[in-house]
């Protein structure tokens, strides 16, 4: 095995040496410490000793060459055949100390969902622990330009907002978007039609490129003043999933209307005490999820998946909740929702809502859903045709609770009514079973308020 002989450190401050004369030639046998060559530097003239015993095979540096300390001068074939480079290198003054790599950073990365997952855009687990740790520079700039730091995405370690992040926002016009609104748990305001209209309009702070001339993007004409937005990775994933679901699953749609007056009364009676005891708001959503879960136990076909030549009925009931932010849609999952009480569901929903708002959803939070509940009522919708959360078999949207005159026992009464809309994959399900399922949900809801235990 050939050993590399390098230029040794010949004295303090010496960084290179000139080969004055070789004392060996290829084929010469040398013992350890035998002189190999004479080297002159501007400080000293010295002989370079061999660091190993063996036979010189090749002189790399020629007489007269100036060689930096640590650079190769010749090869010696050692008898033992063992590689002695380490020994030789040790003598040289090199700075090639291996330094452990700096810790890898995690980044937000939308990943495509697998077959059995939530099948909506998902976020990798991201460290956001430093999101609210503001440096003096960041605070100073935020105050000066009146920026809401909670609305700025941080690119630093742990999601920290760096000075550069803030400067970028200032450069782009210096305003931050209005707070992200999630539609989880906000339906408590929607008991009257007027309340539904009180929601603040969300001004989207989109930063698009403004078009100056008439032209075309693909086949689509654009006109002066139009804004052209890049499609984010999350947006693209949403688009692909929606197309896939609509394309593969033949959607059918049905709707029932439920009288939830007792539930509204019960919830209004309980909400203050619940908040005091549990620290979270008691919204209508956990009641609706509970009613759906109970109905799914009765009709497990709705808790299933079309798998080509098979239909898979899921054992666990994992409820996906559609949660919209200003610019994206997420479907975090309440795992094993059939084991949770109303209080347990309320807590699970609150946790997912907070995580979504703070952009902390993990991959695990997003996968394993078997049926989706969509709280469209939170933004005042009274009827919707949701797209199925592929590959699930059905999706139910809960519309706004509105007071309506209805006929009971041939008398007109004012009741709190809600529409429940169901989109179903007609490959798996038919109208009959879905109708029965919706009836079950409806009965569960009607019963609530008289006969319910929050815990």
């Amino acid at each position, binding site marked *: 095995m050939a050993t590399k002989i390098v230029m040794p450190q010949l004295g*303090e*401050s010496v960084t290179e040496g000139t080969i004055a004369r070789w004392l060996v030639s290829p084929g010469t046998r040398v013992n350890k410490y035998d002189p190999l060559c004479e080297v002159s530097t501007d400080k000293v003239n010295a002989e370079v000793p061999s660091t190993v015993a063996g036979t010189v095979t090749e002189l790399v540096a020629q007489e007269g060459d100036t060689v930096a300390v640590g650079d190769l001068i010749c090869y010696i074939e050692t008898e033992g055949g063992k590689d002695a480079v380490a020994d030789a290198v040790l003598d040289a*003054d090199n*700075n090639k*100390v291996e*330094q452990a790599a*700096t*810790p890898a*950073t995690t980044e937000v990365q939308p990943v495509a969902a697998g077959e059995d997952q939530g099948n909506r855009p998902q976020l990798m687990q991201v460290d956001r622990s430093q999101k609210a740790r503001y440096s*003096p520079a960041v605070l100073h700039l935020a105050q000066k330009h009146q920026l809401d730091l909670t609305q700025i995405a941080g690119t630093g370690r742990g999601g920290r907002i760096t000075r550069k992040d803030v400067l970028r926002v200032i450069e782009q016009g210096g305003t931050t978007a209005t707070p992200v609104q999630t539609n989880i748990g906000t339906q408590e305001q929607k008991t009257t039609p007027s309340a539904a209209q009180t929601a603040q309009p969300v001004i989207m702070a989109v930063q698009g490129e403004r078009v100056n001339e008439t032209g075309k993007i693909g086949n689509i004409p654009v006109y002066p003043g139009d804004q052209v937005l890049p499609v984010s990775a999350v947006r693209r994933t949403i688009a692909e999933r929606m197309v896939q679901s609509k394309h593969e699953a033949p959607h059918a749609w049905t709707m029932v209307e439920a009288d939830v007056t007792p539930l509204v009364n019960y919830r209004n009676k309980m909400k203050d005490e619940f908040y005091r005891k549990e620290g979270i708001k008691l919204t209508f959503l956990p009641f609706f999820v509970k009613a759906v879960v109970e109905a799914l136990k009765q009709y497990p076909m709705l808790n299933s998946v079309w798998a080509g030549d098979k239909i898979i009925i899921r054992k666990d009931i994992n409820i996906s909740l559609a949660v919209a932010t200003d610019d994206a849609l997420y479907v975090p999952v309440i795992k094993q929702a059939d084991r949770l009480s109303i209080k347990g569901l309320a807590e699970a929903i609150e946790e997912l809502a907070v995580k979504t708002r703070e952009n902390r959803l993990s991959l695990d939070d997003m996968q394993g859903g078997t049926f989706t509940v969509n709280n469209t009522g939170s933004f005042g919708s009274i009827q919707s045709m949701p797209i199925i959360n592929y590959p699930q078999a059905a999706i139910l949207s809960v519309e706004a609770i509105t007071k309506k005159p209805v006929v009971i026992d041939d008398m007109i009464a004012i009741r709190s009514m809600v529409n429940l809309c169901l989109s179903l994959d007609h490959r798996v399900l038919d109208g009959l079973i879905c109708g029965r399922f919706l009836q079950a949900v409806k009965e569960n809801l009607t019963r609530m308020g008289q006969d319910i235990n929050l815990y």
Partner: protein
Amino acid sequence: MAVISYIDAVTMALREEMQRDKNVFVLGEDVGVRGGVFRATNGLIEEFGEERVIDTPLAESAIAGVAVGAAAYGMRPVAEIQFADFIMPAVNQIVSEAAKFRYRSNNDWHCPLVVRAPYGGGVHGALYHSQSVEAMFNSVPGLKIVAPSTPYDVKGLLKAAIRDDDPVLFFEHKRCYRLIKGEVPEEDYTIPIGKADVKKEGSDITVISYGLMLHYALQAAEELEKEGISAHVLDLRTLYPLDKEAIVEAAVKTGKVLIIHEDNKEGGIGGEVSAIIAEECLFELDAPIRRLCGPDIPAMPYSPPLEKFFMLNPEKIKAAMKDLAEF
């Protein structure tokens, strides 16, 4: 312009100053016949004679004391302390006499003396030939401490030091002597003492350093550039008094500051630089000020693996720079 080594720039500045002003003379151990152990005074005795290139006994207090006296008399002595490690016996002369001459005499006397001393490690010099001693002098008003990193700065600053009317400690990094080469104009020029220099412009992090570490930082910065990290590199050049304006300007530029020196961390120059930044521009900072320095252990070890552990190198510096950039 010729490309010459760091140590040749020292010799060039000495020669030109001795030619320019007959009051300039050098003294020290082996500076004459031997031409200096590092060859910094090579050829000077032949050109200027033994009255202006004086070989002294091995007594640093005497070297400094003679220089103080000669300076007071109107000469311009350039005393060489063979290794900065050996400066300790001369500290009394430098700190208590030279530094206070002007103040003590109410401006009647002054002490235009230069003490040159090679410092720093990484050359297998072990305990007595590797020390960085600059921090010991950086709280002595009346002294100036210069520690250049490039041949260009060496020539300009050594000339400025010799022409300065007060005592200047001129620290030369001994590993830079033959490692660092650069363009140096043949004509006469000086660089003002007390002025730092931006060696590289950048926008992500600010690195403040001097001496050999500055070169390592520049190497690391070059590699990081490929990874999309842009470092702003400030060379202090003068360690006392510090160039506050330049330090603050460099710190504000990126808001993320890494101070690097080979000298021990605690009590080092970096602490003072850090304090200036904290006092002057806290609200511009985007990260805690960081220092990457030699470990706080008594001396540079002789064992090569231990010396490597002790010394900073471009890899260690790159890791620290990257870490700060990602903060």
